[in-house]
Each structure stands twice: as C-alpha cells, then as structure tokens.
C-alpha cells in the first residue's frame, strides 16, 4: 500500500508541476469560450442576404410577401419585365427576378407551374427553400380565403397548440422547452467531457508506461515493487491529476453560474423602473435568458449530477486507463499503440453516438442498455443523468461497472506484468491473449 502511495505521489507531482498542465488548466475554459465564439462568428460570416425583384401579375403577393434579414423582395411594375430580364445578367446587388403570372379561374396549380425565378448567380439551398416557403404560405392563405374563411379565423387556425408538460414525479415542476434544451445541452457537455477526459488521461497513462519502459526505469522499480502496485499507482496518480483539473474547472463554472444568477434576482426587482428604450429591453432580454439558464442549471439536482458524474468518470476512467496501461506495456513505442487503442476507443464512440438518441428519448431502451453495459455506461449514464434516472438503474450500473473495472484491472495487470519487461518487439494480439490466460 505504501508503495502505491509513493508511486501515486510521484506521478501526480511530476504531472501537476509541468508547465503545460498549469497553462492548460487555466487557459482551457477561456479557449473553449473563444472557440465557441469563433464558430458562431464563422456561421454569421457565411450568412448573406439576397435581393429579388418581384413581378407579381396576380396581385396576390403584394403586401403579403415580406422581406426579412436574409431575403429582400422588391416589387417592380410588370412593364419592366422585358428590360429586367435582359439586364439581370449584369445586375449587381440583385440576385434574381421572381415572375408570378396572372391567376386565371382560381387555378393555383397553373399559377405555380408558370411561376419562375430567374437568377444570375447560385443561390444557396436555404435561400431557395425560404422563398418556396414564403410563396407556399401565401398561396395557402389565398386558397383558404377562397373557401370563405375570414382572416381572423385563419390566424386562429394557424395558432400552435401550446402543450403544457408537467412531470408528476419531479415535484410537479413544469418541463419547459428551455428546461429541456438546457438539460440536453448539459447532457452533451458532460458526456463529451467524460469522453474526452477518458481518452486524454488514458493516453497519459499509456505514455507514462511507455516512458518508463523506454527509459528502462521500469526494471529498477520492478525490483522494488510489484508490477501491480506500479500500474495502480500510476493510474491513481493520473486520476488525481484529472480530479485536480476538474475541481478547478467546476469551481470556475459554478462561480460563473452563481454570478449570473445573482444578476437574475437583482433584475427582477428592477423591472418596475420607468421608461426603457427598445435597446435596453433587448439587452435585458438576453441577460434575462442567461440568468434563467443559470437558474435552471442551479435548480437541478446538482449534488446527484456531480456525484454520478464523478463516480462514472472515475470508474470509467480507471476501466479504460488500465486498458491503456496494458497497451502501453505491450508495445515498444507510440506508433505501435494505434491498432490496440482502437479497442479502447470504439466502445466509447458507440456510447457517445448512441447517447445522441438519448437526447430524444432519455428513457428509451437504447439509452437504458447503453447506460447499463460497462463499456459504454461511463459515457451514456452521464448523458442521461441531467434528465433524471431511476435510482435502481444508477445502482445497477455502478455495480456492474465496479465489477468489470476490477476485472479489467486484473486482466491489465497480467498483460502489464509480462509486457513491461519485453523489449524490442511488439506483442501480437495472440501473445497478449496468452499472457492473459496464463
């Protein structure tokens, strides 16, 4: 036991003292936000607005076809049709000419067939679809009108059914859409974090094993401690590194959420303030949403989520990093690890991609099985947890994961024991199988 402690301590201190660790820990959250902002910026940058001239011979669309941010409709008199058609090719700032024929005998199909959009450059699929949507909407309105229904009735018809969902299990709390969105978001973030962490830290264990093997330090250590102690110490050391990094990040994000949340209550008191410009209201809206989000976040069963997250992360990480330790011991250098690391990555990938369906149906059979089977449960259970999981499922899943983690450590220790003293050649899968069975 004392030896494991010593090895853990050394592993932890060497890794935490590295400059790269300090920089990454402090900078990663900032980088993440910057990256998200950059992606948003990229999306925005690719957005463009198109302007179309419209010749409406039917007279149905004038006043109904409304411009928005991305598409601008400019109505022109029908006399200009010929001139515009011929000059469209060289026109700058106008992407197309929409020509709608006269409506004869209320034959809308005929109108649709003869409508055309002339363009002078490629328009995006999205742009075309929104033009089509705009036109269909108006045609639909016209058709309904012909049936003899008033405009008010139409508006009334179009009204969405606003379904009020209430979860009777969960304190009769209203399950708003925002709530669901935030839970999905949290679920994604947590799941992705676990996925990334298991791989990143697992590979760290593997590297550390390889380093000792290549340095031949392993021979000296093995003459003082058991291979199992060395492997466990190493895994635990890296675990502590991960936990340190986590606690720093969780503290940072909880502080951020609390900060926004205090803004929430302060604003509620501010509402009966006198005149507010439109700009102020809009700004207020964004802040309102942001604080509502953090409010919902803080309102969730935080202790349970953190508990489950840490338990599953730890167990999953130990499960996979013993696998990585075994891989590191069986090969001679990092390039040779690739075919073996597939074994460690594929189950996690299945868990992660499978979890996307969990977003749609958190209590479906796939979600259930993925979060019970040990290979995928570290990822899938964490994806499910923000939505709430029955206690017995969590317990069962933890139980199975503990058992299989112990089993994995046992198997890995067997491979590790033989592997670390093999120099010069890479073990084949067959050989490794032999070591496990011996």
């Amino acid at each position, binding site marked *: 036991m004392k030896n494991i402690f010593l090895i853990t301590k*050394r592993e932890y201190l060497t890794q935490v003292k590295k400059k790269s660790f300090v920089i990454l820990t402090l900078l990663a959250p900032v980088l993440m936000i910057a990256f998200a902002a950059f992606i948003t910026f990229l999306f925005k940058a690719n957005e463009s607005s198109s302007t179309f001239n419209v010749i409406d011979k039917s007279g149905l669309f004038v006043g109904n076809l409304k411009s928005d941010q991305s598409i601008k409709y400019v109505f022109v008199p029908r006399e200009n049709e010929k001139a515009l058609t011929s000059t469209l090719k060289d026109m700058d700032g106008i992407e197309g000419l929409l020509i709608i024929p006269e409506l004869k005998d209320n034959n809308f199909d005929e109108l649709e067939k003869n409508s055309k959009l002339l363009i002078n450059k490629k328009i995006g699929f999205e742009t075309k679809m929104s033009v089509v949507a705009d036109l269909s909407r108006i045609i639909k309105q016209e058709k309904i009108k012909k049936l003899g229904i008033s405009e008010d009735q139409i508006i009334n018809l179009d009204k969405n059914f606003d379904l009020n969902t209430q979860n009777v299990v969960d304190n009769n709390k209203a399950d708003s859409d925002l709530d669901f969105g935030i839970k999905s978001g949290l679920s994604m973030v947590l799941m992705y974090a676990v996925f990334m962490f298991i791989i990143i830290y697992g590979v760290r264990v593997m590297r550390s094993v390889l380093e000792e093997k290549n340095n031949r*330090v392993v*021979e*000296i250590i093995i003459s003082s401690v058991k291979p199992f102690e060395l492997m466990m110490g190493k895994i635990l050391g890296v675990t502590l590194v991960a936990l340190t990094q986590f606690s720093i990040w969780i503290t940072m994000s909880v502080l951020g959420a609390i900060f926004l949340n205090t803004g929430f209550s302060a604003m509620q008191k501010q509402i009966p303030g006198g005149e507010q410009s439109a700009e102020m209201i809009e700004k207020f809206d964004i802040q309102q949403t942001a604080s509502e989000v953090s409010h919902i976040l803080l309102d969730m069963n935080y202790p349970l989520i953190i508990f489950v997250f840490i338990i599953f992360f730890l167990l999953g990480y130990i499960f996979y990093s013993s696998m990585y330790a075994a891989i590191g011991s069986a090969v001679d250098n990092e390039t040779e690890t690739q075919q073996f690391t597939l074994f460690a990555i594929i189950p996690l990938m299945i868990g992660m991609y499978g979890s996307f369906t969990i977003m749609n149906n958190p209590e479906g059979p796939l979600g259930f099985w993925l979060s019970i089977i040990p290979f995928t449960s570290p990822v899938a259970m964490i994806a499910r947890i923000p939505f709430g999981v029955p206690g017995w499922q969590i317990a069962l899943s933890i139980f199975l994961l503990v058992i299989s983690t112990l089993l994995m450590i046992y198997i890995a220790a067997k491979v590790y024991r033989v592997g670390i003293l093999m120099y010069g050649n890479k073990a084949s899968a067959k050989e490794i199988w032999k070591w496990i069975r011996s």
Partner: protein
Amino acid sequence: MLKAEHVTKTYNAGKKLALEDFSINVPEASIYGLLGPNGAGKTTFIRIINQITQADSGEVFINNEKLNPNHIRQIGYMPEERGLYKNMSVGDQILYFGELKGMSKNDALSQAKYWFEQLEIDQWWKKKLSELSKGMAQKIQFVVTVLHRPKLLILDEPFSGFDPVNANLIKDQILNLKNNGTTIILSTHRMESVEEMCDYVALIDHAKKVLDGKVFDVREQFKKSIFGVTLADINNDAFEQFRNRYQIQEYATENQLVSFDLKNDNDQNIVLNELMKVGKIRSFDEKIPSMNEVFINAVSAGKR
C-alpha cells in the same frame, strides 16, 4: 550468502530455454563474477534473484532462507540498461527510489549526502537528469542502487559508460563495500574487471553453467604450460640446438633481445638450466591464461 540450486527457467511455454539446472554458491562478502556471452542467461538469473520473474524449478536461498519478498529490500540492483526519469530532479529521484526500498525520507537524505560526497557530485542535487551527461547519470544510478545499504549488490556491467577515472572511482567504492561485508554479484563481459576485482566466477553459456570457482583456480585450470622467455646475448649455436629440442612459438628479436614462447610439460628448472647456456635470461614466466582466454576457450569448447 546466496545459493542457487538447480534453477531452470524457460520462456514461451517451454520452447526457449533461458537457464538450465543452474547452481552456484556466492560466499558472503565476496565479489562473484557472472560471465557469459550475450543471451547466455545472466540477466534471467539476476531477474530471478530480484523476483522480477520466477524460476520454473529449482530454489534460490539468501542466508539459507528461501527467496521471498522480504529479501527485496536487502538487494540493490543496477540493470545493464540504465533507467532514470529524465525530467525529474536528481534529488527527488534518489529520495523516491530510496522510499520505494522502504527507507524513511531522512535516512534516504543522509545516505544520499554520504554518497554524493564520496562520488564528488554534491552540486547536482537540484539538476534535472536530462541536464546530465551519460557518465554523470551513471553515477546517480550507482547511488540509487546502493542507497538503502543492500546486503547483496547486483551490478550488471557496472563500468559501461564511465571514463577510466570515474570507472576507478566506482571500482574503489565497490571494493570498499565488499570490505564492509556487502556481497556483490558482478555480471559483465569485461574480463579485466573480473581479473582485478572478482574472487569467484561462474561462466554461463547457452543457459548452462560451463564452469565456476575461484578466479585463481579457474585460470590455473586453463593454463597450458607455456612460458614466456626473453634472452640477451644469445649463443647462436646453442640456440639452434635448443630450438630443435623444444617447441618454440612467437619467436621475435628486438634490440639484441630474443623472445619466444616455450611449451614445456617437464620440470621448469631443467629448462632454465639449458636456457642459461643459450644466453642471459632477462625474463622467464609461466603464461597464466587471462580471463579473456578462459572465456573464449570455454565458450568455444561448449560449441564443439
């Protein structure tokens, strides 16, 4: 101190024989040389003593006690492939290995101080290993090996990587340890160091022990009654007569000196008498084979 009895070890499920029926007896406070070509089984034997691997059959005893995990703290092992952590400071590293061997931090610290003075390296404590040269790293490795006052020291090629000055420094330290009662197993194929330092030697080839015993006895055993002779002012007629009656090899003249090797299985004094008539005897000594020759002879004998 250490006794191995009929140790056999195979790899790959019995297909590769690493050590076969290997028995040696290492007396207390001696230096025992383990000789053999690469791949003969030396490292396997050392790993068995260190309990890195287990023998298939046979027993190893330390002080008449069957080898067990408690012995590990009494053993200091310096593997041939040296290994230390590259980006860890020398001091941290030494304390770490000391603590792994069960030392307290203070004990490790005071021992380290002693050895750093002995090896004249006190100014390296805070340096990282990657800043040291290979020879410097070897010294650290040596300190790591002896720090916990092992009763049994196993050194695999201890002098590789050292310049002659430092090799001598280490050699003196090893001899010093022996005089203080440490038993030392020296695995090497540097024959000079065997002749200089070892009291006993065992030769391993192809997984088997070829011969063992005191270094002196082993060399005696391989001598071939060849004498090196150097004469001055020779009488050519007498020399011709002498030449016809004895086997002479490696004949050479230099500055009026004549030297040759002489094979003689009879009484040496008779030959000496005859040689006195041939010329003035400058030197006459029996050629005891070097460990190098013993090694080559024994190994090639094994191949036949």
